[in-house]
């Protein structure tokens, strides 16, 4: 998947790390110290519709449909997360118990065009 850079406005993954100290939550979240709140941003012109950041059979299928039906820009394709991973958190609850849990689908790993 593309990581966002200055010289492209195509669909890509923008990385952003939130440190729990910066938001004053490090007193109740024991581990980790922070996490990546990445997000997807950028254009999805028709010629890349359906591509999760690299050529794939789904993209070819969508592209052929666009050509065969001569679809103008009626519908549009969006830049969305295509792969996420869990975040393991250790924190104090309000009774000062320590709770450990894995939060599924918490971190965006890859972006692509729907």
């Amino acid at each position: 998947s593309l990581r966002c850079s200055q010289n492209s406005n195509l669909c890509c993954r923008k990385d952003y790390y939130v440190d729990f100290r910066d938001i004053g939550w490090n007193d109740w979240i024991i581990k980790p110290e922070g996490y990546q709140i990445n997000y997807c941003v950028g254009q999805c012109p028709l010629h890349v519709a359906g591509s999760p950041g690299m050529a794939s059979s789904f993209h070819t299928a969508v592209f052929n449909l666009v050509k065969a039906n001569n679809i103008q820009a009626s519908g549009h394709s969006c830049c969305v997360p295509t792969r996420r991973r869990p975040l393991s958190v250790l924190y104090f609850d309000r009774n000062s118990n320590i709770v450990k849990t894995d939060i599924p689908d918490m971190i965006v790993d890859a972006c692509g065009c729907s």
Partner: protein
Amino acid sequence: AAAEPRCPSCGAGAERRLLEEAAKRQLLEKLRLRERPRLAHAVPRAAVARAVRRLQAAGARRGPDAEERGYEIISFAEPEPTSPSGMGLQFQFTHTQDQDVHILQAQLWLYLQVPRDLVANLTLSIFLAGGDGDTVGGNRMLLSERRLSAKGSGWRTFSLMPALRSFFRGERRTLRLELESRGDRGDVVATVNATHSHQPFLVAEAKVREPGHRVAKR
């Protein structure tokens, strides 16, 4: 947020604030918390470090399962002020009503203080005290009873299953345990060292079925 034109770096500040607020909202929502917890009392770092080592030693790893979420919880005991035997422990739990909690295992960690010159066996009994429902003989139910060879003081673990399973299904948030230790000659030989450095704690592993996840019964 619209970046203020006169201050190009403000855009970065606005984006940063936006993402930090988004991170807070996402964490609270995924942890099913209405607001960030305000700790009832601080837990000594040494107790936290020891307890986290137990969690790692347990090594219970589970893949993220959307149907059922895995939790491990460590609850530190508070002295039970009304305990007749003077060896009462109290644990506080909260879970949201619509969560379907299944306890997979629950272990009590106690630091038993045994007089050095004593070489004998002792029996340690753990009762679920107080509350309604399944009680035997007065208002308590035997959870665990074990004969221990009293080889000096140290940490001991006691499984509290399957009796504790029903506790977590109930509404109760306060778990009260009564401990009794009897030596072979009938005298009380072991005490629980509940000072901060040896605070007793309970390690429980649970699966929680999130509301709305109705498995179609076939």
